[in-house]
């Protein structure tokens, strides 16, 4: 820096020596800058104000708790809220442990060197990858590669035409055998066809695709990778903020490295980790591009639930992450651009946007306040 100071000050000396209009220019530029800042803050307020003003009137308990009706021009957005909430729950369940442990490794274990530099570069690049690319990746890797192979090896779903033909051949065999049997029993027409169909479905059903299609689980996995850098960076910051003296005290008491981390460092870093998790959830809830091809649908007839499962005392359906789902962001997007009557659906669009804004803002505000309070940031 020292080689920087003297030329800088020389410039300052020159500027002040010219004197004259210095104060005037200062005034002009500073006013300009104040105006710019005010303008941007006003734009922020205008955006929020408009959405609140236009949307608030349409918010009601019915709107939040009912499915849409009348071709999306009436009714509520409950399925979209449901889909968004469970999507981010699955996402954070995947991302948080990996992100936190990854940060622990970076701060506590990794030595300065090649491996650490590569991880650091990977995290930085991951943060810079355009969100739509995550969408392509999720489709190409999770759905088409992992999902389709799971389907093939676990359920026998054909991956290509040749494999589909094998199944078709087997069905033909079974059908021929069933026809013979039906002839032998001398069945009449409706019963005849039914008998054959039953036989074929029983011994050679067409395997149904379960994993190799867009689904909440893959969408959550894709988003988890997207938010990983957010969690890693904020956890790292909070781990670094834990004073060395506390660690040393724990070591002095005879704790092993992991004991120090798990009983002393991680609990002290909890607010920072929480901040990262909240930011990640807000980010994940605000993204649409990554999940656009991975299971979001305009209208799902049912919530993504399983059949009611028998617990000891009661029956209850559970979220089935391998189904398609509705999503707040996609609801806004498709209502605004693709619905039959975009103007008529405007109040719903504003109200849906308001719900999304409130959801993400509450989370972001909490994160900001937490960060202020525990001051893990510089």
């Amino acid at each position, binding site marked *: *820096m*020292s080689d920087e*100071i003297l030329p*800088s*000050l020389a*410039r*300052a*000396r020159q*500027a*002040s*020596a010219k004197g004259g209009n210095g104060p005037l*220019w200062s005034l002009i*530029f*500073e006013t300009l*800058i*104040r105006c710019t*800042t005010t303008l941007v803050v006003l734009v922020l307020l205008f*955006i929020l104000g408009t959405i609140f003003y236009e949307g608030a009137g349409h918010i009601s308990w019915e709107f939040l708790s009912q499915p849409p009706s009348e071709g999306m021009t009436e009714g509520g957005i409950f399925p979209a809220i449901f889909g968004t909430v469970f999507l981010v729950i699955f996402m954070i369940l995947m991302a948080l442990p990996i992100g936190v*442990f*990854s940060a622990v*490794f970076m701060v506590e*274990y*990794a030595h300065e060197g090649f491996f650490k530099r590569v*991880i650091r*570069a*990977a*995290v930085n*690049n*991951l943060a*810079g*990858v*355009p*969100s*739509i*690319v*995550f*969408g*392509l*990746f999720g489709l*190409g890797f999770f759905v088409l590669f992992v999902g389709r192979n799971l389907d093939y090896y676990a359920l026998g779903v054909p991956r290509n035409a040749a494999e589909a033909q094998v199944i078709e051949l087997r069905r033909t065999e079974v059908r021929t055998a069933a026809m013979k049997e039906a002839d032998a029993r001398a069945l009449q027409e409706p019963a005849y066809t039914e008998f054959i169909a039953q036989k074929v479905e029983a011994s050679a059903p067409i395997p149904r695709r379960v994993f190799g299609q867009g689904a909440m689980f893959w969408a959550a996995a894709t988003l988890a*990778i997207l938010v*990983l850098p957010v969690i890693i960076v904020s956890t790292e910051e909070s781990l670094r903020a834990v004073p060395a003296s506390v660690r040393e005290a724990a070591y002095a008491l005879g704790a*092993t490295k992991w*004991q120090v981390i798990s009983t002393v460092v991680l609990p002290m870093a909890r607010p920072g980790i929480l901040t990262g998790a909240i930011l990640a959830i807000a980010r994940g809830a*605000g993204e*649409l*591009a990554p999940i*656009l*091809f991975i299971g979001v649908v305009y209208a799902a007839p049912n919530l993504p639930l399983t059949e009611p499962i028998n617990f000891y005392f009661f029956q209850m359906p559970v979220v089935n992450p391998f189904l398609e789902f509705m999503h707040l*962001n996609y609801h*806004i*997007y498709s209502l*605004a*651009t693709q619905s039959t009557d975009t103007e008529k659906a405007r109040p719903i*669009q504003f109200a849906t*946007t308001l719900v999304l*804004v409130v959801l993400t803002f509450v989370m*972001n*505000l909490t994160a900001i306040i937490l960060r*202020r309070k525990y001051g893990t940031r510089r």
Partner: protein
Amino acid sequence: MNPAAIRARLRHPTSFLSLARERTIEGALMLCGAISIVAISLIFIFLFKEGLQALGSIHLGDLYQAKTVAQKYDAATETTIDLPPQYTFTWQPVSEKPKFSFVPLILGSIGVAGISAILSTLAGLGIGIYLSEIASERMRSIIKPAMELLVGIPTIVVGFFMLAVVAQPTFELFQSLGMAKVYNDTYNMFIGALGVSVVIIPVTASLVDDALRAIPMELRAGSLSLGATRWQTTWRVVLPAAVSGVLAAVILGFGRALGETMIVLMCAGNAPNITVNPFDAVRTMTATIAVEMGAAAQGGTHAQVLFLLGALLVTLSFVLNLIVETIAARFRKRIRL
């Protein structure tokens, strides 16, 4: 936490078992750390794996200029003869003879990202300077969280806002200003870029703020004591010292704008035109992927070309990121000296 409390929660490691446990945990943590590397590698591998298959059915040159071969029936000889092939910069993936020229998409992306980079550099620089040099502690504690909130706005909200509230009145405004001949589309490059800058400005602003605040106070004190005004100090001393940090912020903003999807998809008009008029509808690389991937048949040439477009996009952002990293590293090194 007091030592007694810590001691109460610890078990003493004396055995071989506990050592093995330590090693296992370290290994597991290392695996978690490696997941980021695996993820970024898989992203590259899968995009290129899917994308490069497209080159089996089309030429690399077709991605630059789409080739159309028309045929004419010649009545005299009763044969069809090939007309000389025509080369056009057309993106027309769903047609009888699909055309896959990336040129309109790349130009659209550069147009939108360029305009929004200019807008967000101007505004972001202003806000960054305000936050770091001008604002009182109290104003700073209001503006800074406001910027952080603005970063947290879902892009779909901005996109919807531009689409529903801004686009139409702007169109009418320009019409009434007598610019109807220039202002061709309600949804255009400029509206898209405006929306994108709303999300980029706070990013640029806080990075500029960080870069300026990294400059030591002594430098400002020296400058002020030589009689320079606060603005002269900012403009001639602080900014030149922080120029590489500011540059990193600007490039990062451009990169973000290049990758922005939903806003341009909703507001930039979605027509793959080649144009220099910022008030024409365009379509970016990101929007193209978003619009067409859902309908493109899996394993078909169209889908593969879209993957290739994604590969191009991720390579671009990788390169931009590398540049930012290099500049930022140099900046940090200089500041520390």
